[in-house]
């Protein structure tokens, strides 16, 4: 299930723009890794390269390798659709499919993969909603549209949708930035629980959040506008927030940045 990720000498481009330069990072399984850094430093771009979402943008290009338990997901024999089916992703804004019911949203990934057995779909829906701490709130209205839920519930619905396919890795791109503090806490608690089963990478602008939920933190930065983003350092979260090895990291986390 949970797999380790090894990113080696990754360079990412949007057309001619060199967005991210020479990133190498290892993410152990059953572990939460947080990406922090200023806007435009490429942390979301790196995250999106981990499930081959980066190349969806027109003109986007990838160099280097990303390995899942030693297998390069950018090898020419690998189908990007298959990669995305084994790596779940949660976005900044909750994006349940508005025309689908709550249950259909949760099992959308399984349906795409070809599962038709109704009993199995029902079981997965319940298990995933329980896993996302949403079951008790929605069990009586599984056939209602997902868009009718609150923002925090919608985001947990999206997490349920992502974990329904039992992914190897769960990627989260600022999953709490559109949520109020109470919903944020619900999601953070959930991340801590999900860590037992999944490898999690989370991008966040909230440094307290990174400190609360992650085991390992990677700090990204860029030298200036138009320059590529770089990985400054990656270390245990405790060390990054108490005694980082790089001055730039210390400046950023202490608010002395820029």
């Amino acid at each position, binding site marked *: 299930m949970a797999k380790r990720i090894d990113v080696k000498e990754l360079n990412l481009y949007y057309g001619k723009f060199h967005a991210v330069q020479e990133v190498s990072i290892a993410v152990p399984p059953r572990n939460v890794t947080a990406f922090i850094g200023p806007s435009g430093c490429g942390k979301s771009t790196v995250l999106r390269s981990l499930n081959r*979402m980066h190349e969806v943008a027109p003109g986007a290009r990838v160099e280097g390798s990303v390995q899942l338990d030693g297998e390069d997901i950018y090898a020419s024999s690998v189908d990007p659709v298959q*990669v995305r089916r084994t790596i*779940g992703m949660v*976005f900044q804004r909750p994006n349940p499919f*508005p*025309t689908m019911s709550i249950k259909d949203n949760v099992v*959308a990934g399984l349906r795409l993969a070809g599962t038709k057995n109704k009993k199995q779909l029902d079981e997965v829906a319940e298990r995933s909603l329980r896993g996302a701490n949403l079951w008790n709130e929605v069990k009586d209205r599984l056939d209602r549209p997902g868009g009718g839920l609150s923002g925090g519930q919608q985001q947990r619905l999206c997490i349920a949708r992502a974990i329904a396919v039992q992914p190897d890795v769960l990627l989260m791109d600022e999953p709490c930035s559109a949520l109020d503090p109470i919903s944020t806490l619900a999601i953070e*608690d959930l991340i801590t629980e999900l860590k037992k089963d999944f490898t999690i990478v989370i991008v966040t602008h909230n440094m307290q959040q990174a400190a609360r939920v992650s085991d390992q933190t990677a700090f990204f930065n860029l030298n200036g506008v138009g320059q590529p983003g770089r990985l400054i350092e990656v270390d245990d979260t405790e060390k990054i927030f108490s005694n980082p090895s790089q001055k730039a990291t210390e400046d950023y986390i202490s608010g002395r940045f820029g």
Partner: protein
Amino acid sequence: MKDPVVAEHPADTGDTGVERGASAAPSASEAPIPPTQEAAAAKAPHVRPGDRIFRGLATGSGIFIVVLIGAIGLFLLLRAVPSLGLNNANFLTSREWSTGDVGNMRFGILDLLLVTVVSSAVALLIAMPIALGIALFLTQYAPRRLARPFAYVIDLLAAVPSIIFGLWGLLVLGPQLTPIAESLTSALGFIPIFAQGNVSIALSGTIFTASIVLAVMILPIITAVSREVFDRTPVTHVEGAIALGATKWEVVRTTVWPFGKAGYVSASMLGLGRALGETIALTIILSATAKTFGWSLFDGGATFASKIALAAPEFNDPRSAGAYIAAGLVLFLLTFLVNAAARAIVAGHKEYE
């Protein structure tokens, strides 16, 4: 088992709760000030001249257009009513149309209505799937560099004058269609819509030809509106589907189509509205016939608009002109209903967003 987790949250967020309360307090004390200022401004007679002029112009234009449409409707009705009184046939159910002898006018719209609706419906049936294909191709599959010029060409199609489509249908497309029409009648003639029609197939002035020309004419509007709607599918939904491992086609099926469906249907209604009212192309193409419409695609005949256009010489007598005006009113109501249906569908679509 989840309840304890939920119950913990208020306790956990006690601090933030206090902070939020504290931050809310100053804004609450500030809040009353702007409204009182606004209220004072509303009461004060300080309306700037530019504002007054602009409001006057806008209101005037709005009233003007409503009055104009009302006046046109009233005029048509006033001119139609006397002729309807002189009609010796049932206006709604008769298939006759003889207004030459104003002393004994017999006219009914049934045949016109059937030819109009059938030719437009067939055109819609042909144009809808093609427009859907083009719109999906332009928004989902075509490379950006190709999509723009391609969409521009489609829009150009809408700018071609109807008279050109009419000439093309009569002189170019019609003769090409004749062999197809002949093989259809001989192979599938036992089905009423493919039966031998009431005009000569060799001359190709049939509803079949007319519908295909109409389909080409309404293709651009359906395509353009559908393309706009599909283009506005929220990126977050598309990305959500891609991240779940959806292929291109599955992305279209799970996000683009549910989002754009209503827009596509209302675009088709707009196209139908245009087909129903199309005049000059059909006036040129359709062969006139004294026989009634027999539910075959290879019938000739006339639509509301082409009938009226062909009758210009009779307009010197207000009594026969009134008969055509009455037919025009029915066409107006028909297109109005179609447009109203399109609007209702779009309004239903808003709830979704």
